[in-house]
């Protein structure tokens, strides 16, 4: 047993902030990757990249809003 117990950390808050923080970048990243490779495949550079980036950003922001409202209600 350790000499000194570590202070209890509120992991719930950290987990909430981390998950909210991940929502936007992950959605943007997925949209950009999809758009980039679809553009390469269809030769439509840069339109599909733009479209999927916007879709990713909007979906990320939407899920962030949902996460925040859930966070607010808890």
């Amino acid at each position, binding site marked *: *047993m*350790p000499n000194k*117990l*570590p*202070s*209890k*950390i*509120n*992991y719930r*808050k*950290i*987990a*909430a*902030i*981390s998950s*909210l*923080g*991940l929502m*936007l*970048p*992950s959605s*943007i*990243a997925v949209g*950009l*990757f999809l758009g*980039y490779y679809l553009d390469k495949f269809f030769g439509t*550079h*840069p339109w599909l*990249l*733009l479209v999927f*980036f*916007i879709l990713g*950003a909007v979906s990320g*922001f939407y899920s*962030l*809003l949902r996460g*925040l409202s859930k*966070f*607010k209600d808890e």
Partner: protein
Amino acid sequence: MTDNISEEEKILRRIPVEILVLSFVIALASIFLLNPLTALFIFAGGAFSALSFIWLKRSISRLLLFKNGDNPSREKGQSPFLEKKRGRHFYVKKGDRHLYGKKEEPVSFFRGQSPFLKKALRSALALYGIRLVLIIAIFFIIIFFFSRNIIAFVAGFSTMVPVFLAEAVIGLSRMKQWKS
């Protein structure tokens, strides 16, 4: 109680630094493996990711302040939100005083459905929305002028993911030690 907050704050403050360090390491490796411009974009993505995490944290702290605080008061020299918390007293930035009504009197708020929470949420979202517009503008610039390096920027922007994973593993291991 203050120990809890300082521990959380330590972890939350450590995350942006770790994102920067990780993106710097990846950028350094890609100077030799790819090219310096790609390395620059990876580091820029990491820096931007760290910045967006700090912005999000501030927005959530603003929200939490209104959710948890029940006796806010103002003292000179105390700032910013949730960074310093003594017992149940919160110290608020000058610009946010209007949310509390009178200046010097401690005002009880967020009892049940308070309009302050709505206002706080709205202001936090508005600030984050402005920052989101900035993020989108930067992505647009990169897409139009440096479209070949967009993947490098996104790779840097995604360094947040392994950092969170590492922090989760560290947290879990600490919890296990604490219980055993």
